[in-house]
């Protein structure tokens, strides 16, 4: 096969993988972008950046990990780069899970009956987290298990399990809905 033909074949595989990824994980990528960027305009740019990073990355996808793991790694890595850039520009501090537990909460102790309100509060909390904790919590909210989160982050499944346990504990306490959130 000529060099041009080989290039075209790689590009075609890249396009196919991208279409599959965007079709299956498009909404999850949007939620991820939302968790990393509060400003709607900048968020759209970030989402675009993630999509481009994904498409570019598929040129070197060799099936060593699952497509899902690859997509989340690329998305989190692109979003983390964004957080580092923004953090330097805005000079804002990020917190860890432990500090999240101690954050003052105006509505603490009240039932969070409204889903939109719960979502807004959850989003606000996540947007303040350090990238690694944010990656774990987001993956947990997307329904991934500890082993899958470990494959994305490089943390051991055991460590992730402990983190998830803490996350559930903190969220249940902060959202205080009589155990509804962790049935």
């Amino acid at each position, binding site marked *: 096969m000529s060099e041009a033909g080989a290039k075209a074949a790689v590009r075609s595989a890249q396009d196919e993988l991208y279409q599959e990824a965007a079709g299956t994980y*498009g909404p999850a990528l949007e939620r991820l972008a939302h968790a990393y960027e509060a400003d709607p305009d900048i968020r759209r740019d970030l989402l675009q950046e993630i999509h481009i990073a994904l498409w570019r990355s598929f040129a070197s996808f060799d099936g060593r990990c699952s497509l899902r793991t690859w997509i989340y790694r690329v998305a989190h*890595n692109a979003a983390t780069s964004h957080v*580092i850039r923004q953090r330097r520009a805005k000079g804002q501090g990020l917190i860890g899970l432990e500090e999240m537990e101690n954050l003052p909460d105006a509505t603490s102790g009240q039932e969070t009956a409204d889903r939109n309100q719960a979502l807004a509060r959850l989003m606000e909390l996540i947007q303040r987290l350090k990238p690694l904790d944010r990656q774990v919590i987001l993956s947990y909210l997307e*329904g*991934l298990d500890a082993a899958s989160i470990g494959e994305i*982050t490089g943390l051991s499944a055991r460590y992730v399990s402990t983190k998830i346990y803490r996350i559930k504990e903190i969220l249940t306490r902060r959202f205080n809905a009589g155990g509804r959130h962790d049935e």
Partner: protein
Amino acid sequence: MMNESPKNNLQEIWQCQPVEGIKMSVEEIHGRATKFEKKIWWRNFREYAAGAIAIVVLGFSFASSHDVLSRTAFALLIAGMAYVFYQLHRQGQAKNVPAAMGLEYSLHFYRNELERQRDLAASVWTWYLGPFVPGLLISMIAAMLHATHLRHVAAVAFWYALIAAFFIFAWRLNVRAARCLQRMIDDLQAAESSQ
């Protein structure tokens, strides 16, 4: 496909949140990727152009000055400027998002990014501020020697003191940033070692 365990309430709220449903066709992605590459090209071009203009201006000053000390100062400033622009170019290349970022665990990617920024901030003196110092020192001496009376000497001393203050301020700011980044790296290393 996405869910591997029964959803709890927060997971459900999270996954059912309204999204805009932004979709990009492959053609759009190709177009945007090309645009992105062009943007990087223009960014590099602007940096080189700025460097070239600064060097031409200093070169002109070098050519029009007649005493050895001033010429030495301008030559050193040109060399310093060229070195700084070379370093900016190198760092700009490292800063571009790698295409194969799916191969890297997010923990490692994050730590590598922090380490890269820490090293840049910690070494700001050697790659950004320091290269200008010899040229500035010689130019200050030349200006002092050319000063005809005390008022001129005081004015020269004042301006160079301002430059020195700016250098010290920039250096301290970067040292502080490097310390802050180091704390973040330590946190990540603690997470890795506690596994």
